[in-house]
């Protein structure tokens, strides 16, 4: 996949993901899981492209992908436990 204009394309993707997540406002269960998935994808895009960690050594990429994934997974899992 090619990217015509990196930062601007990521900005548009982030806007679209934000609006998609907003569509699930007030949702519970799997609806909220979808909201959290959109949030996690957004955070991943911020880390990879805004923070440019896609060009960082593997250990840094794994650390930040892990932190982002853990944030999304923790909130989603505990939501299902309530």
């Amino acid at each position, binding site marked *: 996949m090619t990217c015509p204009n990196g*930062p601007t394309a990521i900005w548009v993707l982030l806007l679209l993901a934000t609006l998609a997540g907003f569509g699930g406002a*007030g949702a519970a269960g799997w609806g909220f899981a979808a909201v959290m998935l959109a949030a996690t994808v957004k955070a991943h895009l911020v880390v990879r492209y805004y923070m440019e960690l896609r060009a960082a050594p593997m250990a840094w990429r794994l650390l930040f992908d892990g932190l982002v994934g853990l944030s999304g997974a923790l*909130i989603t899992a505990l939501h299902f436990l309530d």
Partner: protein
Amino acid sequence: MVEAAPDRSRPVPGILTFIAADIANFILFFGYFMVERMAQPALFARSAALLDIRLGLLNTLLLITSGWQVTLAVEGARTGHMPKVRRHLLCAIAVGLCFGVVKGIEYATKIAQGLTPRTDAFFTFYYVFTGIHLLHYAIGIALLVATFVRARADRADPGFIDWTISCALFWHMVDLLWIFLFAMLYLQGAR
């Protein structure tokens, strides 16, 4: 999008260690909130419904847009194009300041409605977490302003690129933390 190959010739900014630790700290906050929410889900959902999600959405869009402008300013710094750095930094600061204005309006509205940190557990978390985030935001704005001041020179001084990248990383962390706070506090309904 083409994944860039790892660039081991470029040193990783030291601020990444601080940012990783700060995100880990917020993960503890997220866990604490969600565990407390498990004890009284109905109250948390009722109180969350009192938040204005349109303001939360607006603030998300503002931070994402400001972050985009910062990435363009970093591009300018790397190529030594100082007018581009100044232009995009000014835009990032202007859009970023709108976040603070919206947050101020939101706090004032909630307090006028009698919704304070003492209202219930949800609002205690809401004010503490968004307050801590606001502190990060204020530091981020100050760093962007400092970068703009440094960028007034016609040529980048030694260390300017690294400074700009570090400040940009901090600002993106403010954006990243808000993404999760917005979803968890504003968009979560009751099961």
